[in-house]
């Protein structure tokens, strides 16, 4: 599980940590991936088509969403992505024909937990390697420039929009694949798993760990996921009702978010000075 969410975190790292794009709808490509699998299941298409949908549809939609980004200021674009995510969720919720509506739908489950683990790790490793390659490359360098000053990049002859498009496509493809895997691991998807709250969960994990560093993102995701999973145990151990503990957990996350901003905006693992050049003395 941690692996899957880490992939999501890394996708956000690319978008936000490196490039400075703020996307509140990251759950959307995730959901698209998951629903790709669901769609396939409902309509009797073979299992692998879910992966195709996840890996292809997600970035395509990402490109659609990034189109207005060049015209809008960052905070408006954030709201648009939020809206887009919600639109998708509501559509899935209210149009039963696509993939089960409120009820959700079951998907071919990878029953052997060993296989599931392996698949998740494989995806994670692939993602990490890819992200590292980008981060250490001239591309990564230019993305960091874009994060700080778009006009500078433009006066140096680069088209910022092209870069934003590329990053968004890659980032959303990652998230989409993560989503499809998620569906197959859990075996069941329903619209309630893809709300705004999920997006912010990813954000908290990323911000806590350090958006500009891959290690940070994985660390943050691990912490958040472990906390979430441990809720049940804490409830049992402390004899408090589950609901109560769950709410406490939410409040804790909120507190963490606020504290990160106030005390350590860089996150737990700040950006190291990358050696992005081949031959520097």
């Amino acid at each position: 599980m941690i692996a899957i969410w880490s992939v999501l975190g890394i996708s956000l790292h690319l978008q936000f940590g490196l490039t400075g794009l703020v996307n509140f709808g990251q759950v959307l490509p995730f959901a698209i991936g998951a629903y790709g699998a669901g769609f396939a299941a409902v309509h009797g298409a073979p299992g692998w088509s879910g992966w195709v949908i996840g890996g292809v549809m997600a970035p395509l939609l990402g490109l659609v969403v990034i189109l207005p980004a060049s015209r809008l200021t960052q905070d408006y674009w954030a709201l648009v992505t939020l809206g887009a995510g919600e639109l998708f969720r509501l559509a899935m919720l209210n149009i039963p024909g696509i993939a089960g509506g409120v009820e959700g739908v079951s998907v071919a489950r990878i029953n052997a937990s060993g296989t599931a683990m392996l698949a998740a790790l494989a995806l994670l490793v692939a993602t990490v390697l890819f992200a590292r390659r980008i981060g250490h490359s001239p591309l990564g360098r230019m993305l960091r420039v874009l994060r700080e000053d778009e006009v500078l990049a433009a006066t140096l002859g680069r088209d910022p929009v092209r870069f934003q498009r590329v990053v968004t496509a890659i980032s959303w493809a990652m998230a989409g694949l993560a989503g499809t895997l998620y569906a197959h691991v859990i075996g069941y998807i329903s619209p309630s798993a893809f709300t705004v709250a999920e997006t912010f969960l990813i954000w908290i994990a990323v911000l806590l760990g350090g958006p500009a560093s891959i290690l940070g993102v994985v660390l943050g995701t691990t912490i958040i996921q472990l906390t979430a999973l441990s809720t049940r145990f804490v409830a049992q151990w402390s004899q408090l009702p589950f609901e109560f503990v769950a709410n406490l957990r939410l409040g804790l996350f909120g507190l963490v978010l606020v504290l990160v901003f106030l005390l350590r905006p860089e996150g737990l693992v700040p950006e190291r000075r990358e050696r992005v050049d081949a031959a520097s003395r």
Partner: protein
Amino acid sequence: MTQILADSLIYAAEIGIIAMGVALCFAILRFANFAHVQFAVVGAYLTYSANRFLGLPLVPATLLSAVATGLLAVGIDRAVFARLRRITPEGKMIVSWGVALILRAAIACCFGGASRVFPVEPAALNALGAYFTSQDVAVVAATLAAILALHLLLHRTRAGTALRALASNAELAETRGIPAERMIALMWLISAGFAAIGGTLFALETRLQPNMDLIILLPTFSAVTIGGLDRVFGAAIGALVLSLAQNLLIGVDLGGLVGLGSWSVPTRFRDFIAVGAMVLILLLRRRMPGALAAR
């Protein structure tokens, strides 16, 4: 038809007040405050508590709750937002979500997850072919009163003028000697107070439950967007427009109009309309004029 109009008006009143608070915050502090709906929920619960446990009648309870929520907002500003004045707008949005989570957890922990109902027995009324209750009338009247009060405040008092100056040009306002921090505190008082009133009205009309915030969130933000994000009275109008749009699309037999057989937008698409409108408006917004970069 009048039923649709009546329903729309009532719903718009509830949402509109809350939306105005969001717009006010946006106008002065330039970010979309996700915690705002939480203020509404807090306000609703405080009113309920004042009413139930302190025995206050509804109107004073609401006012008390509004003041209390306003003070809470000022406190939160001091603790959190004031220290983060310099970060990007989207950063403030993220922080506000954090604050929202904390508030939400606090409410849920204090009051539990069950829903409650205000102990009121409104009289059923009927006029012009529409059914509504005396409570509905009170809700709309309260909203109108609040709008009027705000208008008077903003346009007839020194404080109001100062607020408007801050909203249009913060730097210029400060050089003219307007005490920005005090005005911001005032803004929070009004904004959160309105949220509290709105939340109470909403809870009166429906019921009081912890996940009210999710129910209110989308329509509120949609209304604010339609109204122009930083236009306070625009937000009220936005709420009305949204409400009408929702009810018309759902209530009117669109299929019949076009001659395709009876069909109207299913009720479940209410939220869909709200979000869709919001996204559409944001996309259609002209880019910010002036300054650098022609893109």
